[in-house]
């Protein structure tokens, strides 16, 4: 079932399309990552489907409802560029946001939520004195306070220290394992690669590519690298024979110390390489298949992050 469904969703400012006719579907229990550089239109898209800004044209549905007001109790949102009330404490914020939705959480539950995001001990501190990272954590806490079915996280780890970023990523995975669908944006390739089950690459308000990590990679590059560790010493004529065969059949390869690296089109070519080595009595100790990283896909598509 599609938890998020958008149809030609567009946002224009002064006749310039910041988000251009985006249609996508996010399925239940997915972690869907929106990847793109700053200004690509990621936040504008998330702001439209969470009711912060209004679409210029197109439509969307969240949890099967076209009216976002009807599902606000079932979603959680961490918007980008948002602030808290400086004079209120962290726990007062969570209480206030819960009360707005008609919830009456116990103090224990509020404390547990703060603990989940790593803000234990800061519950009574005024948010005005919080660091950027702490505010980001509180932002996540307010987004999950209502135990949402669908969670929107706009740049959840940007601007936070490495340790906090790891904690946040672990939390996102945990929330997803509990059955929540997560839609997140990021300009961090590694982060998206690490936690998202499906990805859309966005540039200039348009989706350039979307699918699973595998699909995106295979759409943009056909090559895999096979790195084989062989015996220390190979006779010269044997090495020449192998090189000639590889040159004739694969094209790109190189020897480095006792490693042979060959660029292949698909996995079915791996046994051919191994047979070639074994037929010439070359011992094989290790075989690694290296897929292109998302970063390499980006470089190939020239979608700079």
């Amino acid at each position, binding site marked *: 079932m599609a938890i998020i469904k958008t149809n030609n969703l567009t946002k224009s400012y002064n006749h310039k399309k910041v988000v251009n006719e985006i249609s996508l579907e996010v399925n239940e229990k997915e972690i869907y990552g929106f990847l793109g550089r700053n200004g690509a239109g990621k936040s504008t898209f998330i702001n439209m489907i969470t*009711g*912060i*800004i209004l679409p210029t044209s197109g439509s969307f549905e969240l949890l099967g409802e076209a009216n976002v007001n009807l599902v606000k109790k079932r979603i*959680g949102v961490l*918007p980008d560029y*948002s602030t*808290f009330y400086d004079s209120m404490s962290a726990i007062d914020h969570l209480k*206030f946001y819960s*009360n*707005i939705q008609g919830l009456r959480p116990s103090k224990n539950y509020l404390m547990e939520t703060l603990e989940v995001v790593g803000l234990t001990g800061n519950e009574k501190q005024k948010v005005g004195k919080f660091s950027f990272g702490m505010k980001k954590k509180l932002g996540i806490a307010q987004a999950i306070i209502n135990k949402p079915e669908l969670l929107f996280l706009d740049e959840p780890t940007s601007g936070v220290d490495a340790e906090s970023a790891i904690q946040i990523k672990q939390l996102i995975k945990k929330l997803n394992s509990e059955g929540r669908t997560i839609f997140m944006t990021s300009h961090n390739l590694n982060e998206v690669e690490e936690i998202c089950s499906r990805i859309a690459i966005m540039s200039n308000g348009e989706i350039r590519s979307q699918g699973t990590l595998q699909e995106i990679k295979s759409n943009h590059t056909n090559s895999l690298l096979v790195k084989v560790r062989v015996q220390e010493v190979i006779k010269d004529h044997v090495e020449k024979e192998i090189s000639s065969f590889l040159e004739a059949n694969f094209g790109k390869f190189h020897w480095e110390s006792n490693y042979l690296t060959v660029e292949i089109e698909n996995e079915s070519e791996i046994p051919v390489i191994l047979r070639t080595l074994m037929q010439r009595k070359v011992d094989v100790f290790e075989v690694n298949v290296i897929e292109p990283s998302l970063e390499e896909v980006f470089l190939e598509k020239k979608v700079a992050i």
Partner: protein
Amino acid sequence: MWAISLQELKGLTKGIRSIIITLFITGISLLFAYLAQENGELVGGVSKESAYTGGLSVGVIFFGILFVFILSHDAISKESQNRTMRFLVTKTSRRNILLGKAIGITLFWAIVVLLSVSVISLIAKMFFIKTFLQCIVFLFYGIAISMLVSTLSKKGSQSLFIGLLVSLVLPVASFATIFWDNLLIQWIKYLTPYYYMDLSVGYLSIVVVLSLLIFGTSTILFEKRDL
């Protein structure tokens, strides 16, 4: 919605401006009531209620809208400017946010007026329900205008400037209708609350309807705005 109302009410009661304004309105009410009590012979010609509640009425009618703007011009604009609105709008509907704010502000003014009327009542030994209703309805109109200005403004400074302008223009334009018979000016009095304050209590319902129409306009505009 009620959480937002409570938050707004709490915010209003904490500020120094609120305390000064409350003291001013209560003080002027107390002064007039005291003078009416001490100079009974001067009361002749005017009703007992008017004599005792004169201070409160003057305070509210001349300064009410100005005071409402001073305290609440940024109820929406400040939240939009600071982007605290972004969290609110993901939790509840924009209509609920506006309604919650309006209820909170109205409750605050109801408390201020009730305090003043109670002080007067203690001196006069009677409760002036008509004055209480008139003041509340008049201020309700001011709150509606204030919400409209706050919704239309993108910054707190902008809503303050427009608010101060409106709170000066509204009474001047309304009182101008007393002196000019020009039809182009006369219709203004029907759209502002001043004219209805002198009429019977039933006419206050027109002010309530006008205020609700202004609230409705604010809601429509707020729902069409990017935050």
